[in-house]
């Protein structure tokens, strides 16, 4: 058993990787409030918790309803806009276009306000093929053509809200490597 204690000690010396600094902030935010530290100490009663749960459910539903209403209104507006475009004068068209531009601008502004930071990137190569030697026109020496098929996944996270965006897409890469004979 002494041998095993030796390996146990070696294992204890290995330190697990520390979590990212934003994790604590995200947990604090999810638990609720800027300083929920007191929450563990002063635990609320079950009734208060139930009330809070219903309150947040109600607030969530209300927000969803408002969002839905706005979307419906926007869609209606869009249809009207298409109908009007055919008959409006160039002056009015310009007015509409500038309104649309300012709307796009405010969307861009809100995107800028949310700070998404890179949180991870992976690249998985599914297939790698050696397509042999190629003689490209104008090239004095042969080239070896290698084709890679991969899936790249990029992830961003907003430390303030904990929201994350993940983008995953397939990619194909062709490499031409000069070959020299000796």
């Amino acid at each position: 058993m002494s041998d095993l204690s030796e390996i146990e000690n070696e294992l204890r010396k290995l330190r697990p990787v520390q979590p990212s600094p934003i994790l604590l902030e995200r947990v604090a935010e999810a638990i609720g409030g800027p300083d929920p530290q007191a929450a563990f100490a002063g635990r609320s009663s079950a009734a208060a918790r139930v009330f809070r749960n219903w309150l947040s459910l109600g607030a969530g539903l209300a927000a969803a309803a408002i969002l839905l209403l706005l979307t419906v209104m926007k869609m209606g507006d869009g249809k009207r806009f298409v109908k009007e475009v055919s008959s409006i004068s160039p002056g009015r068209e310009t007015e509409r276009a500038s309104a649309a531009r300012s709307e796009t601008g405010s969307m861009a502004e809100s995107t800028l306000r949310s700070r998404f930071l890179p949180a991870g990137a992976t690249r998985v190569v599914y297939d790698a093929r050696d397509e042999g030697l190629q003689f490209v026109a104008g090239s004095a020496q042969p080239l070896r053509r290698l084709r890679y098929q991969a899936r790249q996944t990029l992830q961003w996270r907003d430390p303030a809200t904990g929201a994350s965006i993940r983008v995953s897409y397939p990619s194909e890469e062709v490499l031409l490597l000069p070959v020299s004979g000796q």
Partner: protein
Amino acid sequence: MENTGCHEDWKSCFSEIAPGLLLFARQWVRSAADAEDIVQEAFVKFWRRNHDIKNRALLYAAVRSLALDFVRRDSRRARREAGARAEADEFVEPHFEFDDEAQLALAQAVDLLPREQREVLVMKIWNELTFVEIAKVLGISQNTAASRYRYALLALKRMLQPQ
């Protein structure tokens, strides 16, 4: 890992257990970001349900269950990645911080253990759970937990023995 007073100061408690919890979650998910999501969700649920932080078995069981759910949800992607893993040049974030080559070899040997042994080892060594707690998390007997731990240590010893 001393839990005394943890329930009065969740931040210091969380900071203390988070590295071990993350390592535990990463036995199922490869990405550190996914593991952090799982740990966050488990800890927040645990806290909201007013569980005593001393009941660590429940917290680890929650992490395990969320991680398994994640793997099931993500099974298509996981299969695709597992299929490609042998030939892929995928970057896998390390589970440990290393000081020297010997530690690197030890960490690599841990990765080669069967999952059932590795999860017991992770809970015992880096989370300091007792065999009683480990048995509760995994739904196995205390003796089974202890023997998986012993098999893991023996396997590591075999792997690290100079040829």
